[in-house]
């Protein structure tokens, strides 16, 4: 079901968390609300499920205005960060709870619980208490409970934050599989860009209560609208070079080195401050646009190695290369930047 948020404003007391936000989520789409903590992504999620009432604006599910509808009547499934399972009920009762409060028949409840338990692979755990489950199992129970009454919308509030790294990887694909299998419209709140990029059709990147960019993961990675977006996405993160426009090029700060700018950008006036963003995969020994520096940090990541190169003016560029390269700490290197992959940002941080 399509979700439309129109001119949403939310404040707690005197603090306005979200001001005049609009967002459209398509039917069957999985959208990530991504952002640093305190950016208002959870607040948006809670507004969609009705736990928080909106101070201003409208919320539509399909064509129905649900702004004033209580959370009980919205038919939204939510998976909370710490799963919020009911400790005094066993897994079966936890999953059956949304049906029980709707007073469905015992046989009907039983059939649906078995079905959904099969979908999330917890059929053999139904008699256990939540406390007797591992984190990943609790996660699956919470997902089953959210899905059992066939909600119009599935909301996931940092569902993977409490899992260890391996389980996180597994549940990532698992949640996506279930979302695709049920065809449900889903909103994922997360501060982890990898989660957002790997699980979702589109990402809404939020900062300070605003959506700063809304696009597909690939597009957001390749065409960030601002240095904030560019810095938020990517691991290892993008490196920035500070400098200023000079003679139609980019002069590094505290340096005489001038780099050519990527083609097709609007140059700011002479002397205006600029930033270049260079992703680690585009700073490689073979590229033509050479800069010199010294290897100041080496991190072995198994398949790849991550190098920090400190340039003569003190700026740091990152490079990620295959293991075979074998550069050592302190080594003087002269590596190149892929010129057409440079992301140039103006003085206000926006992409040029």
């Amino acid at each position, binding site marked *: 079901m399509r979700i439309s948020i129109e001119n949403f404003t939310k404040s707690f007391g005197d603090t306005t968390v979200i001001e005049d936000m609009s967002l459209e989520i398509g039917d069957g789409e999985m959208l990530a609300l991504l952002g640093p903590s305190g950016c208002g992504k959870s607040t948006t999620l809670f507004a969609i499920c009705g736990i928080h009432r909106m101070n201003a604006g409208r919320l539509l599910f399909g064509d129905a205005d649900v702004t004033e509808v209580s959370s009980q009547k919205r038919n939204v499934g939510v998976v909370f960060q710490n799963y919020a399972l*009911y400790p005094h009920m066993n897994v079966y009762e936890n999953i059956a709870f949304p049906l029980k409060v709707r007073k469905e028949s015992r046989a009907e409840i039983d059939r649906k619980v078995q079905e959904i338990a099969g979908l999330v692979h917890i059929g053999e755990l139904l008699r256990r208490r939540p*406390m007797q489950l591992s984190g990943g199992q609790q996660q699956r129970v919470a997902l089953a*409970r959210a899905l059992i009454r066939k909600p119009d919308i599935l909301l996931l509030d940092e569902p993977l934050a409490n899992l260890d790294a391996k389980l996180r990887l597994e549940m990532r694909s698992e949640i996506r599989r279930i979302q695709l299998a049920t065809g449900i419209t889903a909103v994922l709140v997360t501060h982890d860009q990898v989660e957002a990029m790997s699980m979702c059709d589109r990402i809404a990147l939020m900062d300070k209560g605003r959506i700063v960019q809304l696009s597909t993961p690939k597009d957001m990675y390749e065409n960030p609208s601002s240095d904030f977006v560019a810095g938020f996405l990517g691991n290892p993160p993008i490196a920035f070079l500070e400098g200023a426009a000079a003679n139609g090029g980019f002069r590094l700060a505290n340096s005489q080195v001038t780099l050519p700018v990527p083609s097709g950008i609007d140059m700011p006036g002479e002397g205006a401050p600029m930033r270049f963003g260079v992703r680690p995969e585009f700073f490689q020994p073979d590229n033509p646009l050479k800069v010199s520096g010294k290897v100041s940090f080496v991190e072995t990541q198994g398949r790849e190695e991550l190098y920090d190169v400190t340039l003569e003016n003190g700026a740091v560029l990152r490079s990620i290369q295959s293991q075979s390269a074998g550069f050592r700490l302190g080594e003087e290197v002269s590596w190149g930047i892929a010129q057409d992959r440079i992301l140039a940002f103006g003085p206000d941080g926006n992409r040029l």
Partner: protein
Amino acid sequence: MRRAHLLGLGFLSPALVIIVMLFLVPVLLTVMFSFTNMSTATGISGGAYEINSASLRKLADAGAQESFLDALGQEAFVVDDAGITAVAAAYGEQFANEIGSQMLGERFTSRRDLERAFRKLKSRPRSTRDIKKAADLFKRSVLNVRFETADGLVGAVTGNGIAMTPDQQELLTRTIYTGWSWTTDNFALMTQIPYIWRVAGNTVMYVVLTLSVSVGLGLFLAITTFYLPSLPAASFRAIWFLPRILPNVIFVLMWKWLAWDTGFISSFLANFGVAPRNWMLDTDIHAWVFIVLINGMVGASLGMILFGSAIKAIPQPMLYASEVDGASRWQQIRYIILPQLRWPIMFICAYSTLSLMTSFEYILLSTDGGPGGATEVWSLMAFHTALDNYAGNLQYGLGAAMALVLVIVGILASLVYLRIFNFNDLVAKPRIEQ
């Protein structure tokens, strides 16, 4: 034992002293008293032996033979050294010596017989009056004489020429002792009190009704204030907490003002032509309503605080989850909040049962067991018996025995509670998060 352990014990010792002095010693004393017949009449120190009209009645009640009683009650005239010495002082050595040489050790049941014997002596006084007086000097009676020891009493009685079988002697010393003695009769005595079963029933009713009101009202207040905005909720809680922080006397006094025949209820109802009366004490049912309300309010304010904080301890996302799962307010209370209040409800039930069973101060202050014993509960009965008896004879021993019954019932009740609520299950095993 390491030094740290000693240090811990050292720090603990003041608490141990307090526990021993304020808890262990009173309990032990209660147990001790309950096996005595201490009362105002016996005193709590020692006693003495004295045969008087009252103790003769007690002996008769205890089944002593009539002849024995008559013998004890009768005066006797015994010619003994003490009498002879007295005669010597009053009527001269000669008469005294004559009595001593001829009559020493003789016993007469009446003065006339002794006088007759005196008249046969040569050196007797001339006047009849003097003979009578001399005879009086030999009058010996065990009546109205205090003896500090049982042996003294027995010596005096046998010295009076009254023969006793060992059974009679035992009966006599046991029955006429004015001090307290060890006994197990209190428990049998208790069952013979005519109103005892009514008091037991009252106690059960008092505990059950008050507990229901305090848990029910406490839960109601905790849940309603939980759903209120914080400021009104805090004000409500403060108001409902007043009964617990008010001094008992003032709290009950306000209820009395409410119920007096010139009080609020009467004055208000006077507008509708209802005759003023004491609404608290006019009927048994009214008295019970007030007792249960007064105690229930106090219990409810504790319950409210305890349940309220337990509800606040429920993780917020769990309540959110139940809301988005479609649970109405009532279902949220029924399926999420109440099950998680199981432990505090158990605590209040167990704690209140025990404290209600033993506490009577609000009843004492409001109805004092009235009207006509309708609201007399066990602990109040124990208090009345032991410390505040209308008849004036405070029966410490019997009262202590009544209190001991409460202690035993309390221990049994707490065992039952632990069993019902399955204490071990309530305390979850610690588990390391995976």
